[in-house]
């Protein structure tokens, strides 16, 4: 089973078209293994991206160096998945 420990989901706000293009540049960097939940399209639309733990620092540095604002939408993806599994297992056990 694939685990997502330390993966973060960032919500990026591109202020203008140039910043959208910068985020698109990020998208093309395959080694970062980014998973765009909401794609960069146009300024004003939020961009959500799941960033694997090894890429978190590089992505944040990239965004900050281009003055692109972001917030951490999900701090640790795996902890939410664990919560989700725990809830499903508990309900299943109760049903049994």
């Amino acid at each position: 089973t694939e685990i997502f420990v330390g993966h973060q989901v960032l919500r990026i706000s591109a202020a203008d078209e140039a910043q959208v293009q910068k985020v698109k540049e990020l998208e093309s960097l395959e080694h970062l293994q980014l998973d765009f939940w909401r794609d960069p399209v146009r300024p004003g639309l939020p961009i959500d991206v799941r960033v694997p733990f090894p890429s978190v620092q590089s992505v944040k540095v990239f965004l900050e160096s281009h003055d692109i604002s972001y917030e951490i939408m999900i701090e640790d993806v795996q902890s939410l998945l664990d919560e989700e599994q725990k809830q499903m297992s508990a309900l299943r056990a109760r049903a049994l």
Partner: protein
Amino acid sequence: TTDTFNYATYHTLDEIYEFIDQLVTENQHLVSKIQIGNTYEGRPIYVLKFSTGGTDRPAAWIDTGIHSREWVTQASGVWFAKKITTDYEKDPTLKAILEKMDIFLEIVTNPDGFVYTHKTNRMWRKTRSRTQGSLCVGADPNRNWDAGFGLSGASSNPCSDTYHGKSANSEVEVKAIVDFVKTHGKIKAFISIHSYSQLLLYPYGYKSDAVPNKEELDKLAKSAVTALTSLYGTKYKYGSIIDTIYQASGNTIDWTYSQGIKYSFTFELRDTGLRGFLLPASQIIPTAEETWLALLTIIDHASKNLY
């Protein structure tokens, strides 16, 4: 029974398929199960048919879960199925719809992907088909339809999450629906449900031209969104795919519209809590409840404006 089934939690494919069987057993006068095909990995693909009788009737189609990681959509599909059985004699709007039309509901449109999200990778979105010459697996079933196939807004890279597949309808999960829709021939409303961005969209996705019925679809989308928002205040935007989000070629509703299904819509369900695809299970029922109001609005309009 389906009365004690827990609608406020996520379920595996086996559990959903057991639910389907149970629902059919409990409501044989209204619900039947149709197998429209098999997945790439050989799983059956089921559609529920809700019908109060008659033959050769027009129909509405709803599908959920074409992108496997969008779990709130399959969970909402389960809730819709139950809702139809509990309300069809009580709710005058639904009753009137079912007197004229059948409703088809495909709860798990991408079963292989869905199983994969439960067992191996919760973030899986595509099908599980193999591409010759590539180690990467799967195609995006919402880029695999024969409408602007392969144009901008889909990827030709098999490793991409928006890979359009080898050719239009190359994904058996897509082809099964294509064959069903063509054979049926009287589907008048087609609603494909995704998550998450809180949007209600109509064609086109692959080109910026306005659809010939734009004015009517826009007005209907507005009514549907108003109904949805009335329950919990969830804010939705609406419009054509290309104008509202982005260019997406080979998508489901561009194809259905090209087949003459005027009322072709796609939803992106809610994420009011900034959890994206990991929407807490506590939000399943509110999401389904509000979406149901919008679905009823669209299908009711279709039933009153049969063409």
